[in-house]
């Protein structure tokens, strides 16, 4: 069996037996022989191909087929375009594998990526340049030399990529004693998260803290046990509860506005007040005071002070707690929101009612998650 494969010939003619016997005597081995009328198909090894063709001169050769490796070679030789395409494809593949197509820079915070790329370009490492002679050490040295902010750099050349991993220098810690300020709690609350930039945390998540407690101390301890003083920097988030409460007792006396109002006006010039001669007519009252300019005359800037006195009268609560319950709950919620800073976002609202000897205490708690970090003395 010839490793090059075989040739299949279709011959047309008479007296094929004579041809077969002659060929056998001349050392031709037939892999297959088939006759159909005057047409005969034979297969011979590729290395006997020319010899067989010579012997078959008396026949008309209608068709030649190639099988095995000879067939593959014949196909490529008769389809030169495929060879050219393959060669070009391989050449392009080889070309693309020997180029730099990607430059990645990892770990940048302050340094601009483009400035790193520009340094590489100066060193003739561009996108599309050959990747045969990339010197990682040379790039590392150059980047350390060019950028003072880089503390560590590592260059890896992998395939068609250059990967630059660098670490920027940390800002130096403030050692000025005047900046040794701790972070304290600005509100009462329960710690939810602590993010320390510098300093030593004195509380942990879940701790209950009161306003004024130190949360992050203004020092740290290095690996040798030395205390390094610094300004505490960080965020401490906590759940803060804002409270609003009212009390109610049936039969209790309380003051309410009667609806009568008395208005007293007086003048004020350069801080000197000229009060009204009238007196307040009510025994119990609430007062609201407003101040406004008398005119737009800046030479004599008189101001009018208006005091509105609301008469208050004593009433006795005869309604039961159940009758007043909805109103009292709403009032306690209102009181709680009055005590809440407008910037806070309420995450939970809860109202508790407690009764002690006929007196009802209605308390509403508003839960907010906020940064309670505050700097002492600032």
């Amino acid at each position, binding site marked *: 069996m010839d490793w090059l494969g075989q040739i299949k010939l279709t011959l047309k003619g008479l007296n094929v*037996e004579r041809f*077969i016997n002659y060929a056998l005597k001349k050392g031709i081995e037939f*892999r*297959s*022989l088939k006759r159909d009328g005057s047409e005969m198909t034979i297969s011979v090894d590729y290395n006997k191909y020319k010899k067989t063709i010579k012997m078959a001169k008396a026949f008309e050769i209608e068709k030649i087929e190639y099988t095995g490796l000879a067939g593959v070679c014949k196909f490529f030789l008769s389809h030169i375009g495929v060879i050219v395409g393959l060669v070009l494809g391989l050449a392009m593949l080889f070309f693309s594998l020997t180029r730099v197509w990607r430059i990645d820079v990892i770990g940048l915070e302050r340094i601009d990526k483009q400035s790193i790329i520009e340094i590489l370009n100066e060193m003739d490492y561009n996108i599309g340049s050959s990747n045969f002679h990339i010197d990682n050490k040379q790039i590392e040295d150059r980047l350390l030399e060019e950028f003072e902010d880089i503390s560590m750099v590592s260059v890896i050349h992998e395939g068609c990529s250059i990967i630059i991993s660098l670490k920027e220098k940390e800002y130096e810690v403030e050692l000025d004693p005047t900046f040794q300020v701790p972070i304290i709690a600005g509100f009462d609350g329960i710690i939810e998260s602590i993010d320390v930039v510098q300093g030593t945390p004195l509380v942990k998540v879940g701790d209950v803290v009161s306003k004024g407690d130190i949360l992050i101390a203004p020092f740290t301890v290095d690996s040798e046990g030395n205390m390094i003083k610094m300004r505490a920097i960080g965020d401490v988030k906590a759940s803060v509860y804002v409270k609003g409460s009212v009390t109610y007792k049936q039969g209790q006396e309380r003051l309410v506005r009667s609806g009568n109002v008395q208005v007293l006006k007086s003048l004020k010039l350069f801080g000197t007040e000229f009060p009204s001669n009238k007196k307040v007519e009510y025994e119990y009252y609430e007062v609201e005071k407003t101040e406004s300019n008398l005119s737009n005359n800046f030479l004599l800037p008189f101001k009018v002070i208006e005091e509105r006195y609301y008469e208050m009268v004593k009433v006795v609560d005869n309604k039961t707690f159940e009758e007043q319950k909805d109103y009292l709950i709403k009032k306690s919620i209102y009181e709680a929101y009055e005590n809440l800073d407008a910037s806070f976002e309420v995450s939970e609202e809860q109202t508790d009612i407690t009764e002690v000897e006929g007196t009802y205490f209605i308390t509403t708690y508003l839960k907010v998650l906020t940064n309670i970090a505050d700097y002492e003395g600032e």
Partner: protein
Amino acid sequence: MYSFDSLLDGSGLVSSGVQYRYMNFGGKAFYLAGFKEILLLSPECVVFRLKDRDQISISGENLSLKEMDTEMVMVTGVIRLVEVK
């Protein structure tokens, strides 16, 4: 090429004569060793002259030859009759 001696020895299948040997495999393949020349090749009949001047005729349908050299040949197809004359 194949050596039939090892195949034929003790096989119990048809084999005869000193100058040639043959074996018929279920009417689908026929091995012959020791032929001198081919006398006839057609899809219905293949005739060989043997070395002792006898002839062997293989009749059937769709007959063809495989692996043929000066010593041995294999006839494939539907083999119905083998005659030695």
